[in-house]
């Protein structure tokens, strides 16, 4: 007959689908009762309306049923008390009761394995968000744990481009990011009553939102890359990011035209002032090639990205061609990187992602 220990050992492999930690480690298993071939597991959910309760029940049943001599598995779900939830949050914050700001599990800690990369452009409309989602998808395909923080509070577009909608689960003050294709995402779009609402705020509210996204969102201690989709310009939001994160990198996106690369240079200037290292430049909308046999057409001029990279003294990570499938992917919420990974644009994104991860490698996982 199986023992309580064996059941708990089996349950260690069951992860809370949102928190990405074992339900045993999180003290969510309250009781295990064994009689003959029958096992009853009492588990506690963090909140009563947990959208993924069925997933948890199914995984518990599957794991326990796989033990020898078990015929029936019953799962009773309860809800954590206020104190139990607080204990769980403390645990997730690495044993500290205050906010995530100083917990060792947070990327705000000095030894965090998470590499934070702010994607900036200076100018609007050059494709920051498109680059962000496709780089995230490419990094994810390369086997990394990736998150996107949509810092464009007024002009958020990540939810649409990644096809992720809904409301994040709140466990007291802790926000669980939504997830799509393995990419964890938080955006102002998830917090509004509907995505057509306009955000009409001055600086202080922006600051509060961003520090919440950084400090109160449970990104997970296994997160390797957090890409921050900045709004255009060098204003409140960019400054809040620079003042809140103890270490972060900047990736500058531009189009080939002078008018864009000249403004993008100011983002790099800001990075210098706030001691953020610029790791590279990505040139978007570089050229258009109707078919592989046609010569490329340089609609927005040529070489703006390379010139900017040389001026800042950083590598050019890639030149992304103009491609209808990139735009369609964005509008349909399926990044081109995932739908047509062998298209020229997707290959360019992939190569850029590879350059990014060699520029800021994550520490080897234990």
């Amino acid at each position, binding site marked *: 007959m199986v023992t309580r220990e064996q059941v708990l050992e089996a349950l260690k492999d069951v992860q809370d689908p949102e928190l990405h930690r074992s339900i045993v480690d999180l003290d969510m298993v309250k009781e295990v009762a064994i009689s003959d071939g029958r096992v009853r597991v009492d588990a506690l959910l963090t909140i009563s309306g947990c959208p993924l309760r069925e997933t948890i029940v199914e995984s518990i049943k599957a794991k326990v049923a796989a033990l020898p001599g078990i015929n029936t598995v019953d799962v009773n779900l309860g809800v954590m008390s206020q104190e139990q939830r607080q204990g769980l949050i403390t645990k997730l914050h690495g044993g500290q009761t205050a906010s995530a700001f100083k917990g060792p599990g947070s990327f705000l800690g000095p030894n965090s394995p998470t590499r934070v990369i702010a994607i900036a452009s200076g100018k609007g409309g050059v494709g920051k968000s498109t680059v962000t989602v496709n780089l995230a998808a490419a990094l994810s395909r390369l086997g990394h744990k990736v998150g996107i923080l949509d810092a464009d509070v007024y002009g958020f577009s990540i939810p649409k481009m990644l096809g992720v909608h809904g409301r994040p689960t709140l466990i007291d003050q802790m926000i669980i990011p939504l997830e799509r294709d393995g990419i964890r995402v938080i955006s102002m779009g998830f917090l509004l009553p509907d995505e057509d609402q306009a955000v009409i705020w001055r600086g202080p509210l922006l600051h509060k939102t961003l520090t919440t996204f950084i400090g109160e969102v449970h990104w997970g201690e296994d997160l390797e890359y957090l890409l921050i989709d900045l709004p255009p310009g060098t204003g409140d939001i960019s400054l809040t990011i620079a*003042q809140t*994160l*103890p*270490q972060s990198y900047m990736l500058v996106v531009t189009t080939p035209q002078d008018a864009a690369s000249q403004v993008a240079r100011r983002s790099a200037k800001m990075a210098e*002032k*706030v*001691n*953020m290292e610029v790791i590279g430049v990505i040139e978007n909308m570089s050229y258009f090639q109707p078919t592989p046999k046609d010569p490329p057409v340089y609609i927005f001029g040529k070489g703006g990205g390379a010139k900017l990279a040389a001026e800042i003294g950083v590598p050019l990570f890639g030149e992304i061609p103009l491609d209808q499938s990139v735009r369609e992917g964005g509008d349909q919420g399926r990044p081109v990187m995932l739908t047509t990974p062998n298209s020229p644009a997707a290959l360019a994104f992939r190569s850029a992602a590879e350059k990014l991860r060699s520029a800021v490698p994550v520490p080897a996982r234990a």
Partner: protein
Amino acid sequence: MSPRMPTPVETGSVTDREFTITWSDGHRSRYTWQRLRMGCPCARCKGEWNYRPDPLTDREVPPTIRATSLTRVGAYALRFVWMDGHDTGIYPFPLLRLELCECEECVARRAAAAPGAPSA
């Protein structure tokens, strides 16, 4: 700030008689609290394009002034909360290192570089 700009590896405590910073290149800076407060770079103390206040002097800032706490701002600055309630000054590392450091070496260097300084 260029990536080669040294950054603080250790900062003294607000309870110390003088404030100190040890930099990543080994330099040790020291500061009297009064001069550090007078060197506040915020718009209220230093002014902005349409507001030019008189510089702070030891008449406004008593020699007994102390900071009550300090925090690091991102990767580029320190911010002090002063016992007079003032807390809007964000001191970027280059300011602390190149303009406000009161160690003998830095004081001598600035004196030599000042316009009108006797040439050696």
